[in-house]
């Protein structure tokens, strides 16, 4: 079976900094893969590269076996098949929640206004935001912003959802509401790649956890295995530090 998403020997540098040094990773359909590792290990860059927001220097990114990182591929077409949620929500401040979430379907997918809004209200309702549809992002809490951002990413029925440390910018008491949204999506069979610092959550929701260090995947394993019996020395050190900090 072809993997839904596959990264083969992906390299990416910014100037003289090599952020990704040959990433290999494969994600099956309905699979939830968590990327963990210290800050600067390349988690966010992987997600940005997969969504073609950054162009890779070397290697291949395959979606359903097709190389989407190849020349001649229209990145807009590829992005329309994926959704990404950023750490700092990045909702459009000049648009209401409803306009934020319907912008993509209406302009990129050509869905008409009524259909887009109907779909939006269904999703907003599902994530407890129906009464926020007319509100502007700066009038809402961080948790509500982030849930709205998830809805925005889901509007185009993405084949893969990318989540980039979606709880890192939230006040601790607001983390739960966003995690439960992701848990629900995982339960519904959404294919997801998450960069996260929430180890407990990763253990809970992931089918596979990948530990990254200096731009490489050092270890990939089901969470039970990786967290209780890490093989690589770096992974052991990292998990030990996380445990000491009370985050696992």
């Amino acid at each position, binding site marked *: 079976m072809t993997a839904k998403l596959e990264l083969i020997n992906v390299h990416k540098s910014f100037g003289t900094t090599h952020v990704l040094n040959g990433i290999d990773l494969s994600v099956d359909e309905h699979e939830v893969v968590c990327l963990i590792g210290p800050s600067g290990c390349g988690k966010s860059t992987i997600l940005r590269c997969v969504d073609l927001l950054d162009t890779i220097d070397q290697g291949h990114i395959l979606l359903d076996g097709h190389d989407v990182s190849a020349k001649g591929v229209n990145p807009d077409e590829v992005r*329309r098949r994926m959704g990404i949620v*950023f750490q700092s929500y990045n909702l459009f401040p000049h648009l209401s929640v409803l306009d934020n979430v319907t912008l993509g379907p209406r302009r*990129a997918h050509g869905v008409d206004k009524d259909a887009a809004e109907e779909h939006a209200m269904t999703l907003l309702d599902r994530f407890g935001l129906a009464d926020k549809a007319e509100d502007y992002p700066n009038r809402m*809490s961080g948790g509500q912003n982030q849930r709205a951002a998830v809805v925005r990413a889901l509007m185009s029925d993405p084949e893969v959802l990318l989540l980039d440390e979606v709880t890192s910018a939230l006040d601790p008491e607001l983390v739960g509401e966003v995690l439960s949204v992701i848990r629900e999506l995982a339960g519904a069979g959404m294919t997801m790649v998450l960069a996260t610092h929430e180890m407990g959550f990763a253990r809970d929701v992931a089918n596979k956890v990948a530990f990254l260090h200096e731009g490489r995947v050092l270890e990939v394993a089901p969470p039970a295995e990786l967290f209780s019996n890490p093989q690589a020395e770096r992974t052991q050190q990292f998990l030990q530090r996380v445990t000491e900090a009370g985050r696992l």
Partner: protein
Amino acid sequence: MAEQRRVDPDPLELNQPEVGRPPGIFAQEGFKSSLIAVVSTVVVFGGGALLIVNSPNWPKVRDQYFSGEDFRASWPKVLDGFWVNLELFAYSTVSIAIVALVVAVMRSFRGAAFFPLRALATIYTDIFRGIPLILLILLIGFGLPALDIGGVPRSATFWGIVALTLSYSAYTAEIYRSGIDAVPESQRSSARALGLTQWQSLRFAILPQAVRNVVPALMNTVVSLQKDVALISILGVREAVREAQIYTARTFNYTSYVVATLLFLAISIPLTRVVDWYTARDRRLRSQAPV
């Protein structure tokens, strides 16, 4: 984030108004400082006025510039001319807003394929910001109509507006661009991630925020344009300044210039007040907005 918690904004009542203290300038500044302000104003302006009125040639100058009779005589023509100014002002405001936006957008496109667009926009701003406006009006106003291009008006008014538009758009495009650059990069990523094309991202996500960023700066440009419209008089367009000149040439009295000055001030002062009010309000709203 404070939305869900209801907190008394002022638990210690530090900001409650004090009872028995009347509002207004005296209450805030104290009587003494207000008195000083009044006295110094009287001394400075009164002293200046005395100096002028007592100068040896004042009676002559007064008749030259402030003659009631000439004021009445020149008023109708200068006012007629001023309507032309307002018309020119309206047309050029619209055309500048559009051309400048197009240039700014051209400069904001990324990627190797759009290099020609960016280069064109850069050359445009460099050239037209570098030419004195009055020179541009002379060159275009007298030069281009001579070509007699079919279907294009030959009137000085038309080419005057073209010259104003070319020059002002170069500056205004830079204002727009500073607004575009001030929108965080993450907004662009976010728009592109939805599958929007580069143009759609600009149109729906970036530009609305960018324009809002620069409204005060744009309004300042409008105030300045309102006055520079008078430069078109050098092409012989019979607007306020031209009419004032004609009156002066006939009568050797300069009161008509004062008439024109008052007419310009009647528009530019309220306009400036509106800009200041808007800028202050904008700053207040932005500083209040929770992030």
